[in-house]
């Protein structure tokens, strides 16, 4: 079963995303902060990380950059309401697979994730 890690500092978002993706057949891991996410990455095989951008302590791009070093095989996807503050060249450099805007469209989100988590 594919491991999917969702990172967001808003518990409401975490809970809603888990609910949305519950029946997709993936094992869903939740992290309320970037540091928690890195702990999980270190201890588990994570196939895909879906991270918020604007979080206290570390931005989503910074987190995904760190993930690309620690676990290069993990697919990195950014979900954010503030895409305009993100350097697209930086995203390409880190190797972010896709961007999903928040609020998300359920079907669109599922379609993106299914591309990577067959």
């Amino acid at each position: 079963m594919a491991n999917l890690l969702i990172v967001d500092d808003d518990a409401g978002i975490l809970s809603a995303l888990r609910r949305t993706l519950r029946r997709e057949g993936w094992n869903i891991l939740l992290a309320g902060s970037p540091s928690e996410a890195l702990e999980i990455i270190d201890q588990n095989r994570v196939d895909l990380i879906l991270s918020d951008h604007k979080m206290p302590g570390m931005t989503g791009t910074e987190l995904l950059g760190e993930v690309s070093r620690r676990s290069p095989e993990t697919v990195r996807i950014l979900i954010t309401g503030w895409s305009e503050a993100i350097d697209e060249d930086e995203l390409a450099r880190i190797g972010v697979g896709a961007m999903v805007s928040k609020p998300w469209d359920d079907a669109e989100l599922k379609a993106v994730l299914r591309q990577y988590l067959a």
Partner: protein
Amino acid sequence: MAGAHREERAAAVARIAVLGAEGPGDVTRLPSGSPLGDSGSSESGTFLALGRLGAKVEILPAGNVDDCLRLSREPSLDLILLDCCPREVVEAFFSARPGQGAPVVVIIPADASESAALDAFRHGASDCVRVGGEYVEVLALVAMEQIQRWRGLREKEAARDKIEWLERLNQAIVTEIPVSLLVLDGHRRVVEWNPEFQRTFDCGPGEARGAEIRDVLPAPLIADGQLMELVPALGEPLPKRPRLARFTDAEGKDLVFDVRSQRLDAEGHLLLTLSNVTKTELMSRRLGELERFNEHVVQSINSALVVIDLEGRISYANPTAGQILKISEADLAGRPIGEFLSSTDKMPAVVEMALEKGVHSRGREMVLSLADGAAVPIGISCTPLLGDHDEIQGAVAIFQDLSEIKELQRQVLQQEKMASIGQLAAGIAHEINNPVGFIHANLAQMSEYLDDLGLYLDSVDELKRVVSAEASEEGARALRSLDDLARKIDLDYLRGDFGSALRESLEGSERIRHIVSDLRDFSHRGGVKKSSADINQCVDSTANIVWTMMKHSVELEKNYAELPELRCHPMQIKQVLMNLLVNAYQAIEENVEDGSATRGVIEITTRERDAGIEIAIRDTGAGIAESNLPRIFDPFYTTKEVGAGTGLGLSTSYGIVKQHGGEMTVSSELGQGACFRVWLPHDLDEASEPT
């Protein structure tokens, strides 16, 4: 001069008064060689003699002594002939004759006594001629001589009078003329000067005589006008042009002189004239300044300037006034100002205050009513025009057309409003984003849950139906209380309405999601580095995303040119394309919904144009009314029904394109579809990008 004229006439015609002659007659008609008697009447001989004087002789016959005396007083008379008059007549004439006058020649009859000639000379005759042998020749010579002598005398006298008169005139001029005169001799030393010179250059009487020009004129004046050139040495040419020379006198007054020189005679005497033209010079300079002021300021200021007389009529208007009032400034003269400055044709209050009370008004705003019905907002200032004694002579009104300023003010206000709306929107979007995200996701899940619960309740109903027939009493009671509960909570309605409530809530949250998304895009742009992008690929991927939504009613035509990469914000450009494609689709849907079409075409064309790339999106949809075209890029402007659109899509797109330094244009006609063109320039100056 009348005198000169008379003399000319006298010179042309010799006028001779004759007493004792037989009567008037033209001497020229007398037959020459008429026989002359030795004695008795000499008259025919006299006429013969006068005839020899030439053709121009006018004989003035005198009937008696008084008549002759009257003639003798005529100033133009040349000669008086007393022709063989009796002795007492001669005496009577001479005793009453005025002291001076034309010469008198006495003709003595041949038989008169020897003393007759002596007597005549004694009485004052100029000459005597006795009738006799060569009388005719003698008389002609005598008359001629007397006439010439008399005329010579008269001319000399007239010349003397004239010289005297000229001397007096000269003296008066030299003394009274307000021009300094200086006469220099051949050695350029002062020989004459006039009182004005003495006064002007503060020189005592006699002081100047023999002095050099440097001694009598101030050095700065000579230097300023290079006056030495006006008094060259003998034999050198005299400059023709007058000089203007300036200096400051002892009292500190600036004086300007017009200086000229003129040679008076061969000895080298020079006349130097110094006219004080300070006032004229000042006036002409002031006049020049006023003319320039008028030309440069009054004629060309961007404000209207109107001079109003005491009756409230325009007496002067500058060209700007003509432009604002839409009447040529010449036609404005004489029109009452009230025609323009008030709707009731009454004199406007600001002008009335200036004319009647001398009150100054500044910066009042009012509205002009023009003949063509246009109303022009103006700012007006009005000042009373005062005369030499502070009496009010009229008023000067200056006004500006405020239309542009008003429009700019409106635009600035609008921009400020939009900026604060943008900030507010950003804040709201930021706060609402997450809760809306999970509310929406949860509602979607809840409706899935409801479907599952529905299946479960269906199974319960089925179970109830199966067990109710063979239920125990306890079981039947439990089933009844289950039915009671179902009735009590109105289960059937609840099951139906739960779905509706969730579906409606989902719709609502979907709408909020779109609004938040639009607001976010509207308020947050830029600040990110650009990256190179293949515009054709951007267009294609965006078209593919929207394709599923529109494929049932739209045919997509793609005409992509080969394009170079463009540095831009690809995500933002995709957002613009998405927006335009969705709009195109909705325009086609409008036609489909009202039945005017079943399908439509969206044509996407890319090409290189003007150092950039153009993307054109053309649809065959409902089109845009001409009256709506100017506003479609305005924020919050929408023609969709309330709730269907935020009105931010096109303005956001427009903003993104502008931020890329590009252009977005639209051409459309109602019912004819629309074509949006986006032009993006190649970014040549990456250094200027915001970071």
